[in-house]
């Protein structure tokens, strides 16, 4: 079992979980996911994962809350086991990620890296846009205690 995933594999699992439907579809088409044959090891399954956080002051770990997660596992024709995990009730996405995970293990690393980088850039852009919108609504409070205007 993998205790540590190679970096590229960890990146593609993350990128595919966070991608939009259109991006995931595009990625799948690029690597021919529909043309390959897969054996289903674990049918997409919805369950709960306990998310853990660390308290700010003390750094003590605590249970943040349960997160719904869908997972799936497949085996490709060339005997690679692919796993897919995604937040939410998303059997289709979990299955797609699992299939891609199996295929990408034997795909050329440069092509994979390029495609993953595109997904990561799109995600970063979405996050930046959200952050900008949120920043635009920021209100500065001035108080007597702070001694400002």
């Amino acid at each position: 079992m993998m205790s540590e995933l190679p970096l590229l594999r960890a990146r593609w699992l993350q990128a595919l979980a966070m991608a939009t439907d259109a991006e995931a579809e595009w990625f799948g088409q690029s690597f021919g996911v529909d043309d390959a044959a897969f054996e289903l090891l674990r049918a997409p399954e919805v369950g709960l994962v306990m998310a853990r956080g660390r308290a700010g002051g003390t750094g003590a770990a605590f249970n943040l809350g349960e997160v719904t997660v869908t997972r799936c596992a497949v085996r490709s024709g060339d005997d690679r086991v692919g796993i897919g995990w995604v937040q939410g009730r998303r059997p289709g996405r979990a299955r797609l990620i699992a299939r891609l995970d199996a295929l990408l293990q034997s795909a050329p690393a440069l092509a994979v890296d390029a495609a993953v980088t595109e997904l990561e850039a799109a995600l970063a852009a979405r996050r930046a846009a959200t952050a900008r919108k949120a920043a635009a609504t920021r209100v500065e409070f001035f108080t007597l205690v702070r001694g400002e205007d």
Partner: protein
Amino acid sequence: MGRIAAGLADPVHDAQMQFRDLLWAMSRPGSVVVLRGGLPAPPEPLVPAAYALLLGLVDGDSPVWLDGDYPDASQSIRFHIGARTVAEPGQAAFAVVTRASSLLPLERFAQGSHDYPDRSCTVILQVDHLAAGAGLKLRGPGIAGTARLEIGGVPEGFVPGLQANRRRFPLGVDLVLAAGRSVACLPRSTDVEA
């Protein structure tokens, strides 16, 4: 590293149906039940019925003992069930004996305690074939009069071992016999005669 076999194709419905089938077999000792639903191709050396029942019954809290070193079976159990495999038969909640002829004396498995007789081991025994109507004579709870069960491939001393198990009631183990897609059960409450 062993090869992971597929899990239940429709885990919710298959596991429920197969559990129901097992309950039927356990409550009517001597009946041979063919498990319904999907049975995935099992990892070596498990038979389909044994593998499906493990997938449905066992979870991360139930230690499993296998009667040998089987990488495919261990890996599949670990992947799908998350159960711990133990080295000592006495530590297991479920014991899988893949060749009935090499069955250990039943006292080697967890017998339960008087406060918790249900904490005994459930022994899944793979046999060559099962047929109702001939063979061993069974009597007891769940059996109207007598029942007969033919079991292919049992070891020497099987019947005396079952009789000794019966005498330990309410302690003792319960046996699930598996052949292909079929199961039959010998709970500790059943009297067995050759």
